């Protein structure tokens, strides 16, 4: 019996040990942290991941553009979340565009690289590719630093008081972190960008990999001008401290001066979705027609109208002679692009515009007009960024690449104009301010942008207030649908004045002429708490030390 017992024990032990090795099923592939930084290629991929957090604004919120929550556009499709921005349903427990978690993930991806990136792979030095790999490797931490600053700014403009994540946090500490105030955070971001700019190359064109999508010196400096301009704006500068504007002006000048030396970028009449010298930093998208599906006018096969520019925006474009549009005299020009600033027909499809070899008909009963389902309520459709060649016809579907400009040179000119004008109160200021010598006046900066399109310069007789209006209008027109208006109406604190949304109702009379009538489409809700986003209640609960933005 004892022998029996022993046999049984031996048998059991053998079976169990055999089972143990059989039970290892190693089908999953995973990488250790060491492996992630084990060679040039892997580190490059880690860097690529951080870039991958950059987003376009083609479908930023609720599948559409943020302009639909401003006076620049309305969204044609009734089921949408973008309207929560203005219908009163936005709250700390019904958040919108809540990028808190995503942006901190993006920041961690940058920190992950910065904290683990090796300086060199000496073992690889005899390989053919070594030199150019090494050149790229040493650049990564600075690219990551610039991106990290960008992601922090994306947080800052939304949430006002943010946690600066200059390192990866542990699970134990993360619920006890505290926020910094806006100016401190903006200053930190600006300093980070300045530091990164000293190491980043002016351009990647002509480098070993020619990877144009990487962060450049120009990107860091241009972003810095934006960050400091936001920090100086009325929303964040209640005391109207002109020194903040002076710093923003100096930052814009630094970028423009550096660019004059490097010669990388130049103002030009942009052809969107192509590589241009006017774009400082852009997110490139592979061929895709989702944007066209969403925004082609109703009546074009597959189109769902999407972003419909408002009459408010249509009227912001100057007349071709450089004078401002005047509704009582120029209303017919809304249907004739040749009478307007050339940017008008590059931005908006209007009744009578030509698109995809057809004339856009947005009058009542027209091919693209009401009562057609999903037709634009404003009579206008989006033109900017759409790839006209895209076909959504079943069986012949085509799609094309898109390029989303994150920062363009013209913005820096307009940042310069705004900062210098607000710092000095004069459109014509030239000279020395806070130790910096300015040779281009705010007016000249605005005119530099206008001249690209052949638009006559603004008159040199403008009063300060009139100049401010024309300058802001220039920014609205130049940067339309690039994601700026949403933030500009906030930092200028003019949001309450942008709540009435107008469209155009066009009737065709029996003789074929069009009778346009402005109509009030929406009176949107605005509360001052909406200048900043609420931090979600869930996040507030996880970290009890966080402060909520006012009135949320």
């Amino acid at each position, binding site marked *: 019996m004892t022998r029996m017992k022993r046999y049984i024990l031996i048998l059991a032990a053998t079976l169990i040990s055999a089972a143990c090795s059989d039970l290892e099923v190693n089908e999953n592939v995973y990488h250790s942290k060491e492996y992630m930084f084990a060679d040039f290629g892997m580190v490059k991929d880690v860097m690529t*991941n951080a*870039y991958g957090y950059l987003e376009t604004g083609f479908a930023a919120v609720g599948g559409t553009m943020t302009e639909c929550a401003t006076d620049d556009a309305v969204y044609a499709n009734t089921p949408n979340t973008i309207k929560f921005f203005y219908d*009163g349903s936005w709250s700390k427990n*019904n958040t919108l565009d809540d990028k808190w978690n995503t942006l901190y993930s993006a920041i961690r991806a940058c920190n992950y690289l910065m904290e683990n990136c090796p300086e060199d792979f000496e073992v690889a030095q005899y390989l053919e590719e070594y030199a150019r790999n090494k050149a790229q490797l040493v650049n990564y931490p600075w690219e990551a630093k610039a991106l990290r600053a960008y992601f922090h700014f994306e947080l800052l403009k939304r949430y006002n008081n943010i946690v600066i994540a200059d390192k990866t946090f542990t699970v134990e500490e993360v619920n006890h972190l505290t926020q910094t105030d806006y100016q401190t955070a903006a200053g930190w971001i600006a300093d980070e960008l300045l530091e990164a700019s000293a190491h980043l190359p002016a351009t990647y064109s002509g480098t070993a990999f020619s990877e144009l999508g990487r962060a450049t010196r120009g990107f860091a400096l241009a972003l810095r001008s934006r960050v400091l301009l936001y920090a100086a704006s009325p929303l964040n500068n209640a005391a109207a401290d002109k020194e903040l504007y002076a710093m923003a002006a100096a930052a814009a000048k630094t970028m423009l001066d550096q660019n004059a030396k490097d010669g990388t970028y130049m103002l030009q009449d942009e052809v969107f979705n192509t590589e241009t010298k006017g774009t400082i930093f852009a997110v*490139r998208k592979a061929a895709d027609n989702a944007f066209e599906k969403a925004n082609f006018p109703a009546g074009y096969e597959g189109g769902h109208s999407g972003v419909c520019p408002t009459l408010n925006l249509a009227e912001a474009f100057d007349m071709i002679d450089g004078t401002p549009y005047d509704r009582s005299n120029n209303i017919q020009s809304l249907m004739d692009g040749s009478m307007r600033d050339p940017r008008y027909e590059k931005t908006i499809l209007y009744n009578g515009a030509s698109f995809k070899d057809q004339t856009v008909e947005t009058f009542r009963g027209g091919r693209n007009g009401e009562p057609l389902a999903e037709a634009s309520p404003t009579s206008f459709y989006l033109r900017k960024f759409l790839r006209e060649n895209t076909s959504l016809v079943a069986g012949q579907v085509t799609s094309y690449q898109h390029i989303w400009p994150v920062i363009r040179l013209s913005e820096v000119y307009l940042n310069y104009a705004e900062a210098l004008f607000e710092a000095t109160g004069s459109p014509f200021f030239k000279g020395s301010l806070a130790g910096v010598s300015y040779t281009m006046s705010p007016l000249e900066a605005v005119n530099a942008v206008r001249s690209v399109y052949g638009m006559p310069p603004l008159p040199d007789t403008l009063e300060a207030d009139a100049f401010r209006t024309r300058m802001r209008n220039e920014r609205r027109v130049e940067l339309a649908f690039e994601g700026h208006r949403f933030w500009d109406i906030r930092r200028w604190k003019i949001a309450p004045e942008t709540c009435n949304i107008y469209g155009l109702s066009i009737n065709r009379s029996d003789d074929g002429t069009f009778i346009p009538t402005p109509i009030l489409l929406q009176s949107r809700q605005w509360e001052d708490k909406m200048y900043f986003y609420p931090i979600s209640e869930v996040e507030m609960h996880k970290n009890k030390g966080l402060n909520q933005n006012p009135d949320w």
Partner: protein
Amino acid sequence: MKKLFIVIISLVASAGLLAQEPQSNAGILSTVGEDVLDNSSQRQILNAMYGLLPGLQLYQNGSGYWPADIIPNLTVRGKGSYSGNHPLILIDGVVRDPSEINVAEVESVTVIKDAASLAIWGVRGADGALMITTRRGGQEPFRLKTSVRTGLQIPYGTPKMASPGAYARALNEALANDGLPPYYSQANVASIEDGTGRIIPTMDWQSAMLSKYGLITDADFSIDGSRNRTRYYVYANYSSNSGFLRNTGLTENINTQAKYYALKIRSNLDIQLTRTTTLLVGLSARLQQQQGPNAGLDLTPMYTAPTVGIPARFAGMWVRTNMIDNPIGSILGTGRKIDFGRSLLADITICQDLSMIIPGLKADVHASYDNSATIIDSKSFTYSYLTLTPQYNTSGDLVDYSLAQYGNDTEIAFSTYLLSQNMRFTTWGRLYWDAKFGKNSLGASMLASREYYKLRGVGNTYKHYDFVLSVNYDYDRKYLLNLTLNESASSLLSTGDKFRFYPAASVGWVLSKESFMSGASWLDYLKLRASAGLTGMDANLQYDMDKQFNGVGNSYIFTLPSDLTGLREGDLPSVGVRPETELKIDAGIDFKLASSLTGEIDVFMSRRDGLRTLAGNAVSGVLGVGLSDSFEGRVSRRGVEVALQWNKSFGEFSLNLGGTLSYVKNRIDYIEEQYSPASFQYQAGGALDRLFALMSDGFYSAGDFNSDGSLREGVVSSTFGQVKPGDVKYKDLYEDGKIDNYDYTWLEVPTLPNLYYGARLGFAYRGLALNVLLQGTGNWTAVTNLPSVYCPLYGGDKNVSEYYLANCWHPDVTDGVKYPRLTTLENNNNFRDSDVWTANGRYLKLRELQISYTIKAKFFERINLKEAKVFLQGNNLFSIDDMGIFDPEYISTGYPCARTYMAGINIQF
């Protein structure tokens, strides 16, 4: 004597049971045998089990697929976990797909639910098991049975959509409610209603697409017997089912009708190799073919296309609009698809008597290999179509349509691909030993088993080991004791931590054998039993949860057109990966009274821990990286089961009545939940499977508003949108004067019933017999948020049902309504999860009805005919419920469910 032993062992072995079988803790009515199965009118085995076994709940699969080959969802004693329910379905001891098993080839079905019986499945057993045993030969020297039945399936639960006139008026009413101009003028509506207007097309999609019935045929053939040293059972079945889709004749050469064919063969052989060795071989194979439209059998477009405004075809082309899909075109006009399924199940077992070594010692070794695959073969194409845009005259009448052609007619595209394949290899070896010392019997068994299961694709390989030691003792079959210990392993667990230990014990006391009970002559049998033990469940784990998966991250384009794929830091790994562990405690009584009433009553309670729960709900998003699940969740359940069976004969009239009832309550004891300031938003403390929804409080009435359309002071407002009279008013649970996300709560009644019952009634008089199977449930919440039928007209859901129109708020009908006003706009207030879009799902259904007549004739004996029986059968003939338009188990705009009417004949030689 030895022979008998071997027979017993081989039967036991084939059932996959341990030597504990004679003293099993299972109740005496927890098994359904041939007597019941022979009278079933179902083909597929699980479909025949509704309400028959105490503690087994079956629910018709409401997922909207074609029900020809779909098996019911099942739970054993309800659910014990919020992260899935995985009861084992064992066919001849091996985990297998029960959809392949027909009623006619099954000998018995047993539900296994207590810890002592489940212990041998260790880390897989916590959700209970259903054990199906197929037939084997040997009861008679030779037997031939054949059964043929054929009949009709009638679709039901297809709600009627509004007629053209009703639709046009409803659309105008909805537009008026929204403050918009009418779509159809008065004159248009009148012409639609009386059919005079030729301009506006009307179309009854439902009658155009669905036929009145489908045909169903089912033929069984089996022979069994014994010859020399071999016992055999051979079974074959052919079944076919043609669906409800009407052949429109509009798509040339391609038949998109739904059709199903299956051929099934089984052969079970028991061969006595030597005096002490028996070989058991089982082979089962099935070929099946399921054909349907390439677009699938989801008929949602049929319900969402209105009866007005769009014809099927015009000028020889399909018609569509921007909003409305053409259901005939999109479902029946885009080609067909065939699923070919093949499977082979093979078993071999060798049983060896080892009494020559130690008296009472036996062993068996088993291996089985199952393999199945589904291959898809499709023909598809797209078509060009016209879209209609209405043209109005100046007085607002729709006078014409403008037409535009879109799309292209494409060539037929062929494709064939493998949809699924799986392979399972199961082996076990066992040693048993039994001995009797006077009135003491002692038994012990050791089992080592391995299961290897592989589905198509990576990470789909699963292995399980169980090493079981089981000891039984009884004294005079009066006091019974069983102890089972299982060292059980799952490949899903972490390296070096694969094993878990599952002990269980049960005791039994047969009171009726006690001398002090001998006076009670009416009492034939009375047994008290109890068990307790641990069971496990690993199915909710994934591989390598303890590792940080750094891997593929975001991609980015540095230079057009190609993108680079990045590498990201993975979620922080889980700590303490473990399977769910359930402690089960069970007590029961079995009895038999007056030779006619048999009964079984069980009470149980169990507590499960180690449930996966989200760790991230407590950690700030500033961390910037995901967290994997932790294993802190806990669920408990308790309940009672009763089964009664009464058989009695009065002369030539015999009666058998049976009933089962189970009542289970479960509770989430702990789950990591997202923060909410309102206590009623937390799930823990309540039952599983509840809906997170708003509670309605009637509808806004005109009196709730000021003359300018704003809400009166004190009336609760909605942050989900501007409300109007006829919109849903919700309960302000958070009591802040407005309805927002904080007013959501977990509805009290879960989406699975606590109470589940069944009743089987059998009457026989001479050759005539009637068998009825009824099954019902107590209260549960059925979700009815189906587009068009319930949530009508807005968005892409452009239709409305008659039922909705009869029950919704109208400007002139505001009392006693169930649903909010009609609207064409997206209404963010009305169309969100709330109790408006639920109904009480309770039902009592006639699952089966069979009337049969056994023909007796003198000449039968001459031709060796033992039995001839003709019968009429029906399934799902009626349901008593609160739903009205749908089967409560099948609220779907998918392929309709069916009532079945069949006639057939059984012949046995």
